[in-house]
């Protein structure tokens, strides 16, 4: 691969999926796109670049973008964000939405489904308390290929043994040959949709809880800032945003702030949260540091 070809692919991926590749990530392009070249009968990366420049072959474009995404995930990944959901976010959101009895949750980088299904299992465990509620669980990913796997809900022996307690395995899965299929009731709870976070997503509506974990790390700073600002716009004033352990909002957007108590949890910055805060406690100035605690996060 020549420098020019490498530069073209870097900028191509940056535009299409936001992926920011540094100069030393040459090997990643070579190892991931080699198989795409073979699949499309292209002699090598040079031929691939020529093909991408030459005409709009949507199948090829999609294959290139999807081959470069990282889909590693597992059930209850990092555990804490899910304990937080069960013990804090869900009960508090239910208290705040007790009148509407409606909750909207979004997994913004759902990959092969382990994250939305982990949340779905916890929602099902809370089914008694959620009787009469309407819960939307929307799960999106850039890659249609991983979404197909997510919808099928079929996981290997290895996938079901990473992060998933065995009690949950026998409760929520059934064995089909060498694989395990998640129950139909859990599959029906998740609304899977293809979505590129670089494109507008306001049509999805407003969410009470957004999980957007381990995807921003692949973007450069301006892209991170743009996605975070739009996530803030899609988040309810009293909503909760969960990011991955290596991600933050600091220095990227003024619209969100870290929650002091829970790592990885972000809430609307005081100005954005002003309206409901004033409604809860009219006496408090919007900038009061105790405000977020009062609001419930």
């Amino acid at each position, binding site marked *: 691969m020549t420098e020019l070809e490498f530069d073209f692919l870097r900028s191509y991926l940056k535009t299409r999926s936001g992926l920011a590749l540094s100069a030393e990530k040459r090997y990643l392009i070579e190892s991931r796109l080699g198989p795409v070249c073979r699949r499309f009968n292209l002699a090598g990366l040079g031929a691939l670049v020529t093909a991408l420049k030459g005409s709009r072959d949507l199948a090829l474009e999609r294959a290139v973008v999807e081959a470069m995404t990282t889909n590693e995930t597992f059930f209850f990944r990092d555990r804490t964000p899910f304990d937080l959901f069960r013990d804090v976010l869900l009960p508090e959101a239910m208290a705040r939405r007790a009148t509407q009895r409606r909750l909207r949750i979004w997994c913004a980088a759902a990959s092969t489904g382990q994250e939305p299904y982990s949340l779905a299992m916890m929602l099902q465990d809370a089914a008694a308390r959620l009787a009469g509620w309407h819960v939307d669980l929307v799960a999106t990913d850039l890659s249609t290929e991983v979404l197909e796997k997510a919808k099928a809900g079929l996981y290997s*022996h290895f996938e079901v*043994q990473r992060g998933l307690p*065995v009690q949950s395995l*026998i409760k929520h899965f059934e064995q089909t040959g060498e694989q395990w299929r998640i129950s139909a009731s859990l599959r029906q709870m998740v609304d899977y949709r293809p979505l590129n976070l670089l494109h507008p997503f306001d049509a999805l509506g407003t969410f009470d809880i957004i999980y957007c974990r381990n995807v921003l790390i692949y973007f450069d700073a301006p892209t991170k800032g743009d996605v975070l600002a739009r996530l803030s716009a899609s988040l309810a004033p009293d909503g909760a945003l969960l990011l991955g352990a290596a991600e933050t909002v600091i220095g990227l957007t003024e619209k969100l702030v870290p929650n002091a108590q829970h790592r990885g949890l972000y809430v609307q910055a005081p100005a954005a949260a002003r309206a409901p805060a004033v409604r809860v406690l009219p006496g408090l100035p919007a900038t009061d540091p105790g405000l977020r605690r009062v609001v419930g996060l």
Partner: protein
Amino acid sequence: MKTCLIVDDSAVIRKVARRIFETMNFKVGEAEDGEKALTACGETMPDAILLDWNMPTMDGYDFLRALRKAPGGEKPKVLFCTTENDVGAIARALHAGADEYIMKPFDRDIVTAKLAQVGFHGEADAA
């Protein structure tokens, strides 16, 4: 230091498992069947037990039932580790007192994840 007893009639499995547990700072003991494992537990009760199902003399299931009745035998976290991987076998093992269940073949990630499941969180808090 945390201690672990690896109970399996296959020397290869014991060796592979020993390596994984040692990198997680466990002091590792081995037993090749349920009877020897029960004797070992009578001397020193380990913190964790990785337990095969099918073994000569005394199998893992009978060992587990005997262990849970023995003095101090409720303490170890028991991870079944077996090729018996149908739902019925898993349910029986849990009923007999297993804390977690590993279906063979396993790798380091699975063992680490399952140990975290029962409260052992890797190298970070091992010192």
